[in-house]
């Protein structure tokens, strides 16, 4: 299945203006998205230069490398989470309830209310319209094309698109917010009543069974804020390129009861948004951020309608952080309640690698946002024709369909299929398709029948996931593009895998070639000529020589051979495969390894045992 919509829609929406890679936005990773005490009030870090700046709690810088490693680790362990964390998912006697708010940057060419371009690493303050910096007398002009990714996102989340929606002002002061308010959709959002199906393969908690549906309360459009970059000497630099860039906020119902399921939900939403090309980048690059609302109550109370007092944990920037923060906050609340205390409704923060959430501000510190309909902006009317057109355009690209397809057509495990889909914001699976297509083209030239089995597809999947993953700790080092190209050109990997599949090279040689391709050392020679010129072809021993090695390996191992006889006589149930491999190992060690294939060695050895040594033993008896 081709993932054409990515590229196609990019052209359609962006006329090629959007830079999709190299856009790590380190400073933004922990930026509070909507609000926090620090956002509206503090300049504490800015004055009284003698004292070290008081840490503004939710702005603590975490090194990017550490952050990414953390995420890569979380990603790798996703498949195991279910088993590993089973004991983490519930606390006997207590019920956890979680609601999630996700903020995602929309994939658009222009800002929400000005015709300034959206951008990533351009010169700071080079894409700023008068309205973006709230020049007196400037007015917002809604850019209708921002609706395209927004509506696609809402459709992917199975929402009802509202015919009429409106914009409201949410007031709070912060220097990254020039007008003193953020324009959002508070009273009448553009999409409501959605749902996301989570399957066990998505990594939900075992307690949630095979699948669970998470209801979406609403999806709203809103403005992003300016980017703050801390400078030495207590100076903050502001880049207004980002101010006014369109976001969507996705708000779930409080229906999630297990931490792993919450993390799975965020992961799934990222995948959904990416698959319909609604979103510029994922959590790894700061394009997606989550806030979670957590409450607990005793299971005896769970048939009453009231939930416990909830706290909000702001600005979680990885899937692991979502799960860990929820576990920590749940445990904290239970501890408070069990010691006879009361949970305060408050806003809390979380930093990576920590074991507890920390208080940012309590109810008394809450800002009253004084929501007011924006008097300059008329209602947004979304026609049914637009909705049905966009609904048609996303048919067949939703990830569940694609995961099924990868599993059915290529025989991938659900875990591998999901991992392919998720890595590099969807670039990895595209890379998989590219390598597969190139490999099949070569196989088709040489041997028309070999594509009928799925071995070659599994080989490609294995290398795209695992061997590629071994090249570097940071998947970003691969420089994967949305079109599915990276530092290892898909054609070179396809060549390597072609020779490996044809048993023309050993897998050790194949791995070495991959590493050189990654470093760019193959040069203009390409894979085949490098093998040729360096004599790396696999010239296998003839069976005769394997037999000689087998004979040598068996020498003096009568006890071992007896095991095979016991099996043949039915005295033991299982074939002594372990013993066989032990003998294969001896063969490999004694022979010329670069010319040997363990599979061949095994085949020949087994034949020698069956045909020569067992009859010999039998005749001895």
């Amino acid at each position, binding site marked *: 299945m081709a993932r054409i919509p990515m590229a196609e829609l990019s052209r359609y929406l962006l006329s090629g203006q959007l830079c999709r890679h190299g856009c790590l936005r380190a400073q933004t990773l922990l930026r509070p998205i909507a609000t926090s005490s620090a956002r509206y009030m503090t300049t504490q870090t800015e004055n009284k230069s003698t004292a070290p700046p008081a840490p503004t709690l939710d702005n603590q810088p975490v090194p990017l490398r550490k952050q990414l490693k953390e995420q890569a680790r979380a990603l790798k362990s996703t498949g195991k989470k279910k088993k590993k964390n089973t004991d983490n998912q519930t606390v006997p006697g207590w019920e956890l309830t979680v609601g999630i708010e996700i903020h995602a940057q929309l994939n658009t060419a222009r800002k929400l209310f000005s015709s300034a371009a959206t951008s990533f690493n351009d010169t700071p303050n080079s894409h700023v319209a008068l309205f973006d910096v709230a020049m007196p*007398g400037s007015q917002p002009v809604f850019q209708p094309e921002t609706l395209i990714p927004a509506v696609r996102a809402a459709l992917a989340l199975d929402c009802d698109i509202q015919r009429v929606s409106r914009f409201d002002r949410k007031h709070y002061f912060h220097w990254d917010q020039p007008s*003193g308010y953020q324009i959002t959709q508070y009273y009448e959002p553009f999409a409501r009543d959605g749902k996301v199906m989570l399957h066990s393969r998505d990594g939900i908690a075992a307690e949630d069974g095979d699948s669970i549906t998470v209801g979406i309360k609403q999806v709203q459009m809103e403005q992003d804020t300016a980017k703050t970059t801390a400078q030495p000497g207590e100076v*903050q630099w502001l880049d207004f390129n980002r101010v006014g860039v369109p976001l969507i906020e996705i708000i779930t119902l409080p229906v999630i009861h297990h931490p792993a399921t919450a993390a799975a939900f965020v992961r799934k939403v990222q995948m959904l948004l990416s698959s319909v090309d609604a979103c510029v980048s994922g959590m790894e690059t700061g394009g997606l951020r989550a806030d979670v609302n957590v409450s607990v109550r005793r299971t005896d109370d769970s048939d009453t309608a009231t939930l416990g007092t909830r706290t909000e944990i702001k600005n979680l920037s990885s899937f692991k952080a979502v799960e860990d923060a929820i576990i920590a906050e749940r445990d904290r609340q239970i501890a408070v309640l069990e010691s006879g205390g009361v949970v305060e409704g408050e806003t809390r923060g979380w930093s990576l690698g920590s074991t507890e959430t920390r208080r940012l501000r309590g109810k008394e510190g809450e800002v009253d946002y004084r929501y007011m309909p924006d008097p300059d902006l008329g209602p947004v009317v979304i026609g049914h024709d637009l909705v049905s057109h966009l609904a048609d355009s996303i048919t067949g690209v939703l990830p569940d369909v694609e995961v099924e397809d990868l599993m059915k057509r290529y025989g991938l495990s659900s875990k591998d299929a999901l991992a392919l889909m998720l890595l590099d914001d969807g670039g990895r699976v595209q890379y998989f398709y590219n390598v597969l297509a190139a490999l099949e083209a070569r196989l088709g030239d040489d041997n028309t029948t070999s594509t009928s089995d799925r071995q070659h597809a599994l080989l490609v999947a294995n290398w795209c996931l695992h061997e590629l993953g071994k090249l570097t700790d940071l998947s970003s080092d691969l420089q994967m593009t949305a079109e599915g190209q990276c530092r290892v050109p898909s054609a070179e990997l396809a060549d390597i895998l072609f020779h490996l599949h044809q048993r023309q090279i050993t897998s050790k040689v194949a791995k070495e070639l991959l590493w050189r391709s990654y470093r760019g050392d193959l040069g203009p020679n390409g894979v085949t000529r490098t093998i040729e010129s360096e004599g790396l072809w696999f010239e296998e021993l003839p069976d005769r020589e394997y037999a000689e090695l087998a004979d040598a390996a068996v020498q003096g191992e009568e006890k071992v051979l007896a095991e095979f006889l016991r099996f043949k006589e039915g005295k033991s149930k299982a074939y002594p495969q372990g013993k066989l491999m032990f003998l294969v190992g001896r063969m490999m060690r004694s022979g010329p390894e670069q010319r040997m294939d363990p599979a061949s060695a095994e085949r020949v050895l087994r034949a020698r045992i069956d045909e020569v040594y067992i009859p010999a033993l039998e005749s001895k008896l």
Partner: protein
Amino acid sequence: MSARSTLTELHLRHAIPTRHQVVGAATQRRYLNQFICKAPQSSIPQDVSPSSSPATLPRFRLAVKDNIATASSDLPTTCASRFLPSYKSPFEATIVTQLRARGATVVGKTNLDEFGMGSHSVHSAFGAVVNETDGNGQGDGPRLSAGGSSGGSAMAVAAGEADVALGTDTGGSVRLPAAYTGVVGFKPSYGMLSRHGVVPYANSLDTVGLLAPSAAAISDLVIGRRSNSKSSLWAEHDPKDPTSLLPAARERCAQHRRGYHEDRAEDWPSTLQGLTFGIPLEYNIEELDPCIRDAWAAAAALVRHELNARIVPVSLPSTRHALSAYYVIAPAEASSNLAKYDGVRYGRRANDDTSDSDAADGVLYAASRGQGFGEEVRRRILLGSYTLSSEAMDNYFIQAQRVRRLVRRDFDRVFALSNPLAPEEDRSFDLSDLPDHVVLEDKFGPSEVDFLLCPTAPTLPPRLEDVFQQKSPVDAYMNDVFTVPASLAGLPAISIPIEVSATSGNVSQQPSNNVAGMQLIGQYWDDARLLAVADRMAKLFSDEHH
């Protein structure tokens, strides 16, 4: 750009602009203080008085209220606020560009109540505007209120220093000064003239208004001299203003109105005969000055005789709530609009060298906002912040919006023309919904009218000293009682001068200025007819007196 550093302070070094150098005693007869900043004489052509030659573009002098952006380096846009003492806008307001294309030369920026908030043009960082009459021809007349907030623009026209002046009318800010200074002040239908470049006070109510000695001068610009509507302001949509009506909507509205496509020279005057004027009973309030009430009656009689008009009483039952609703909605929007003045990007930044001013409460902008805004602006920001707060929202802001809808329905019910912007289901009225005291004309309901005729203000202009001595700042809000309803409903309205009889009032308390404003209100987009009728009536009033 640094949030902390110098960008915002660059402007501050200019401190107060060079008004005193530019506005000398020679050009300003007395210290009327109507200009904050005047364009250099060299930039104003000498022959800018209205040209009678039809061959050339008529040139005229334009005064611009200082909350409307001008891009000229000589003319900052201060909004009469200490926050923006020398703020130079990087762009020009659409309305200024449009008028310059029609022959206007900007002669200066006029004084106002800070950000347009006030009714007497006294809440200005540059001092109060003075409406000084000649008294007995010796220049020692009493110093009166010029009305607000466009008091400077009105005085510039009254003093003959501008042929046309731009003002902004949010709740009467053009009409009230026009009434107090004896000029014509016009507030167009909401959405007709572009607000792009107008520093907003309350966006849903703000309109750009024009002041001139005659309604004809305004009509020439807004409606056009001939039926060549292509060059008329009313037909020009501004894509930069999201509340500017789209061209198709303008045309649709105009199709159901007269005066936009006719050639006024020919069949136009006859249509002004035999119109129906409504006298809103609820406007005959206790506080109405007897001399104003007499002038109102005289105006009605004159119109009946000279224009063969029908005069009928009408009821606008929601009127008594309109003022309260206005003073909830307008401050709410103002508190939001003024949030951008934090001293971070432009405008005055409190001196934070010591860190004490800002650090005291840990808030970056508090000191700046405390120092930058005047008392009345601070009052309205606090008021608006309260009415929008989650605990008060339902009781104030939401209720006020309901009142606003009722006010519009009141107007829609009395006007013969329907409101093209009202939702379909709102266009018919059930008689059973009417208040009991509404007089029915026949079995179909109360009479329907073409225009409403009422005073612009309940009193003559008060003395400035009395304004300063008002016990409650809310007393000044009373002056807006007749102008606010049309603003809430987005309707066109105009104030034209009428002489009041000196004998009818309590002379000892009245200043010698004996001119008042009579207001006409029309249905939405009926601006063309409104201006034509106003012009005709203004001439009648003036002929009658002489």
